[in-house]
């Protein structure tokens, strides 16, 4: 074409058309995060019995992954006490260079090295449920355990006022874990001024919790036990049930294992503080997606806790929380 400038004009105009149309069409499609690799999630335990908690966390994770259109891969040790195994798993995960890691740390201090390593490679870390002793994680999504401990403590304070026996014992799950430290602090804060005889650790072993309680029940002034997690609560409740001591010793637990809820119905456990694992899983992925999209995220997100008693356990809004449907 001899009129080269007109040809050029055509091309430019066509190009402009293309760009404008593309721009217009793009406005119709929602912004979605495109990741080549899945977000890696390292949980405290998977397929462990009877930890329904992590199963529900996974449901929340799956729901969020579906909603935000991202790929996730979940891994973790079989049992919560396998700290070294979790360190190995997270190190293997870091080697895969995922876009982001969500970690529920089994130990407050021993996983710091791995988190630092991830940070040095530019992999952002979000902690969930249990944090680590570091400023590196961009966000921490968990139950505010001090707050949860406060709720348990306040309920125990109310219960103990109805009881003649006034001594209160605390049965914790594991020494050094952030959840155990915070919950105990919350409980003790709420029970300030009451007779708290001490804290015993069951090392996430229901049998040990049972043994500890059997010992504690020998104290005739003992009027209340606060059990800081599911395993501890189950051990404590079994002992109280066997000794038929529920009239005198009031138990406040944590979490919502089916057996625990049966104890609640029976009246052996008077109240339990329940977390929201589904929301925890959901919010961890939502936060991860927001962070990867470049949005500002909160450094701590409280997923909340609820005090459940026999009176409100069958309320519509708590049924799904206490009895996850997928269990059947």
């Amino acid at each position, binding site marked *: *074409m*001899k*009129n080269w*400038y*007109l*040809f050029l*004009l*055509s*091309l430019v*105009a*066509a*190009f*402009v*058309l*293309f760009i*404008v*149309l*593309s721009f*217009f*069409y*793009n406005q*119709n*499609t*929602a912004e*979605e995060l495109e990741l080549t690799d899945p977000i890696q999630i390292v949980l405290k335990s998977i397929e462990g019995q009877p930890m329904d908690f992590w199963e529900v966390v996974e449901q*929340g994770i799956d*729901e969020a992954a*579906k*909603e935000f*259109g991202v790929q996730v891969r979940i891994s973790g040790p079989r049992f919560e006490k396998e700290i070294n195994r979790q360190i190995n798993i997270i190190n293997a995960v870091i080697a895969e260079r995922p876009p982001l890691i969500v970690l529920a740390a089994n130990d407050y201090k021993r996983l710091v090295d791995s988190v630092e390593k991830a940070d040095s490679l530019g992999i952002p870390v979000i902690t969930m449920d249990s944090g680590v002793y570091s400023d590196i994680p961009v966000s921490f999504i968990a139950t505010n355990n001090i707050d949860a401990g406060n709720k348990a403590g306040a309920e125990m304070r109310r219960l103990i006022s109805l009881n003649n026996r006034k001594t209160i014992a605390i049965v914790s799950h594991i020494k050094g874990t952030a959840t155990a430290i915070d919950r105990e602090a919350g409980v003790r804060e709420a029970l300030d001024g009451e007779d708290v005889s001490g804290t015993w650790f069951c090392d996430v072993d229901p049998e040990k919790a049972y043994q500890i309680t059997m010992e504690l029940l020998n104290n005739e002034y003992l009027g209340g036990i606060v059990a800081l997690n599911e395993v501890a609560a189950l051990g404590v409740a079994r002992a109280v049930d066997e000794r038929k001591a529920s009239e005198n010793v009031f138990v406040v637990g944590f979490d919502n294992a*089916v057996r625990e*809820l*049966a104890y609640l*119905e*029976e*009246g052996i456990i008077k109240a339990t503080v329940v977390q*929201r694992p*589904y*929301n925890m899983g*959901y*919010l961890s992925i939502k936060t991860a997606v927001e962070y990867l999209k470049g949005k500002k995220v909160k450094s701590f997100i409280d997923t*909340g806790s609820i005090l459940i008693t026999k009176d409100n356990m*069958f309320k*519509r*809004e708590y*049924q*799904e*929380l*206490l*009895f996850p*449907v997928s269990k*059947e």
Partner: protein
Amino acid sequence: MKKTLRFGTLESRIYMIFTLMIFATVFVMQLVSFRFTMNTVRNSTLENNRILLEQLVKQVDSYISGMEQISLAVQNDIQLIEYLQNSSNSSSDEYSFIQQRLGNYIQARNDISDIIIVGHDGTVISGDPDTALNPWTNISDKEWYTDAINRSGQTVVSSSYVQNIVAGRYSWVVSLSREIFSTHNNESLGVLLVDLKFNQIKDLCQSLVVGRKGYNFIIDSEQNYIFHPSQQLIYSELRIEPIDSIYALLGENGEPFFHDEDKYFMIETSSLTGWHIISVTNDSDIVTDWQYVQVSYAILGLVLFLVVGFATNRISTGITKPVRKLQEVMKSVDTGEFKLVGSIKATDEIRELAREYDTMVGHIRNLMEVNIKEQELKRKSDLKALQAQINPHFLYNTLDSIIWMGEMGQNKEVVLMTSALSKLFRISISKGREFISISDEIAHVESYLTIQKMRYKDKFEYAINIDPGLYNCTILKITLQPLVENAIYHGIKEVDHKGVLHITGKEIDGNIELEVIDNGKGMTSKEIDNLNKSLNSSIDDSKLSRHGMGVHNVHERIQLYFGGDFGLSYYHAEGGGTRITVLIPSKEMDLL
């Protein structure tokens, strides 16, 4: 042909306007058709969703009606009712019979979790033999129990809830309950409870979804959630469904449907349970090939644009090219040559224009030719008049000579001179003809020479040697006389020796060449060159002497009548003096 971008030209104007118009057209067209495509795809997807949702409602209803059938079967099971009537004195045989019967119903269907009959006295008979009653449950507080009593005999379908009637088992169920009556006296026997495994409904809702992000949920008429895939998010308000919009739609006829941002909500209501089943479809799932559609539309637009752009270019050059050619031809007017456009490849309008232009140029050319001819004619007549004039000096000098000779009594000389003068005048006039025969011309110049020779007293001699064969040829009158006059006054008169004038004439190659040779003063070569040049240039007449003007006029007249090949030339004559040649075409007198 190098061009620069100029917006003033017709071509670029046409092109710019077309481009802009096409740009706008393609853009709008693209927008409309893209929207249209998306809507079509969306509507057909939603149409399919509606069918899927209707299917879902049917299946949910079939579960419920299945439960209802069981409850009817139990009510109509006479044996069972009879046993129940007698159960006041409850023997373990009767109890186990009822249990077995109920157990059969459970085993017949795998979607039933439990069938239980609760007597008014608090007895509970479960179809499942391995279960023990949960001692901590207060049945008379349960909604399914109270509702069934209140509606005496009608079936009641509960919402989804956790059934805790069996010790140590917490199962999600939807239950159907009804009061059962004795066949004899219509006495109430208690409440029958049929529990449907909620998982059945849940799985159904989760399997019949559209796309990656689609889901279904069920709400009852009291705004309770029967099922939602992420109920916990709902209760903790991390996700909010537009329940109000849904309920607002329910009163309307047709197919309740609306969309909220990128989600499409479709509602069907089960007539059996009064539940509202809502199907949610995400826009990104409806048109999964967004990118593909977008890119193909954009490419289509681009191609369309280029094609139309090319066509526009062709059209605009098709219009402007002949116009430009026309313009170039018209420019030739500036240089004085009137070119014709001739045949041209263009539209009718341009061809018409070209033809009209050609006609106009033709007229102008004719006018110019006529003008030139008229100018020539005028010049000829001017020259003719000039030529015919006899120099007044010559006339009165001649008349003085005649008077002087008369006084002297030289009668013979007077007669000779007067007759020569008369002959001179007669031939000069020649009845106004322009052409005369060479013999007449010779007579004319001889008359002149006779007079001059008498006046100058034999100052010179002359000889005329013209081929007699040419005597009948034609010549412009008064051709030779000015040359002779010039030879006398500028040649012979200037020298002391006796002058000789020699006039010759012969035919050369069909032309006649006449020569006037004198032996006078002569000229330098430079003077001769200048004279020859001045002959062909129309220099201002006043610059020439009277004689010179006569010679010049002769030359001009010859050229006017015969063309540029003919005329006069000056040469050196042998032995000094000047030779003037006259070249004219040879024509017989009769041919004229």
